[in-house]
């Protein structure tokens, strides 16, 4: 039995290209969506109580989160081998010098950094006067969901994480973050 022209039902003719179109549109949406690495609006730690820690400082003392309560806090995870951390360091020094007197605590936490000598050199190079803590067992890093360095947490005086920056601070992002904890920069 031979039919010269066989036309399949309309849905069979249009369904495959329609499916293909949907796939391409989805990929296009994924491509054209702006990459949102820094503000972290979906970040699981936003609005949560900052995980507690008690870590050794470079000078041998200890510093715990409880001791920092009552004032807004910038918690900055970094490492001496990290190149973008060098871009952030001057900004952090500036804000810690400006606000360090009364209104703001700035604390650094070292992530996966075995070389104390290089750490001290970094701190000396950028003139960082605020405390830097050693997270040797990485538990604090895990608690803060660290996926790389630098990452910065803006913690309010009430102990809640108000904003997170996982992309590396610029002046604008630093100001924006500080605003969420009530500090102007």
């Amino acid at each position, binding site marked *: 039995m031979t039919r010269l022209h066989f036309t399949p039902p309309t849905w069979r003719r249009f369904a495959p290209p329609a499916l293909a179109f949907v796939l391409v549109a989805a990929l296009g949406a994924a491509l054209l969506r702006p990459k949102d690495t820094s503000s972290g609006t*979906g*970040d*699981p*730690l936003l609005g*949560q*109580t900052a*995980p*507690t820690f008690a870590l050794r400082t470079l000078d041998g003392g200890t510093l715990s989160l409880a001791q920092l309560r009552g004032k807004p806090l910038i918690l900055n995870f970094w490492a001496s081998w990290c190149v973008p951390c060098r871009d952030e360091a001057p900004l952090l020094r500036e804000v810690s010098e400006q606000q360090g007197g009364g209104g703001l605590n700035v604390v650094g936490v070292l992530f*996966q950094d075995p070389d104390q000598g290089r750490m001290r050199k970094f701190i000396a190079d950028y003139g960082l006067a605020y405390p830097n803590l050693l997270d040797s*067992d*990485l*538990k604090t*890093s*895990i*608690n*803060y*969901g*660290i*996926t*790389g360095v630098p990452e910065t947490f803006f913690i309010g005086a009430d102990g809640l994480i108000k904003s997170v920056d996982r992309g590396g601070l610029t002046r604008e992002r630093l100001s924006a973050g500080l605003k969420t904890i009530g500090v102007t920069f």
Partner: protein
Amino acid sequence: MPVLLAVLLSASVLAASPAPAPLTPLQQAQVSRIGESIRCPICRDVLPITESGNDISHQMLAEIRAQTRAGQTDNQIYAYFRERYGQRVLLRPPVDWAGTLLWALPVLALLLGGGALLRYLAGQRRAAGVDSLAAADPALNAEDPEDPYLAEIRAQVQTARERRGGT
């Protein structure tokens, strides 16, 4: 609050026991299973922490071991990491409508595909039984002769059938 509790729990477990008891095989299996489903947080690749050599992966594994020893279930440990890292740290699909869809679609594809295949194989065959054993088609035979082993078996079956049929 749960975060605080978990941190204190794990801290106390490690602080209290200098030489922790070895894990039972069941616990070891649990640690492997969970470890293979947690993604290395600092790797660009999609690697489980059991297969990445960095410090934080090791520490996460140690954390899983400690929690397993403390009797936490799979889901509790997944929840622990999800609280800190979000869904992306789990290599398993999320437990929501999207994840369910992800698990269901391949099964659906399998069933629909199988159905389409069966329908095709059952379709339009000429009513009169065609004796369509390979030997019948000479053009087919020249390029791809019937395998002697299969021909032998076919002959054996044929003779057995004739004998049974009592010709």
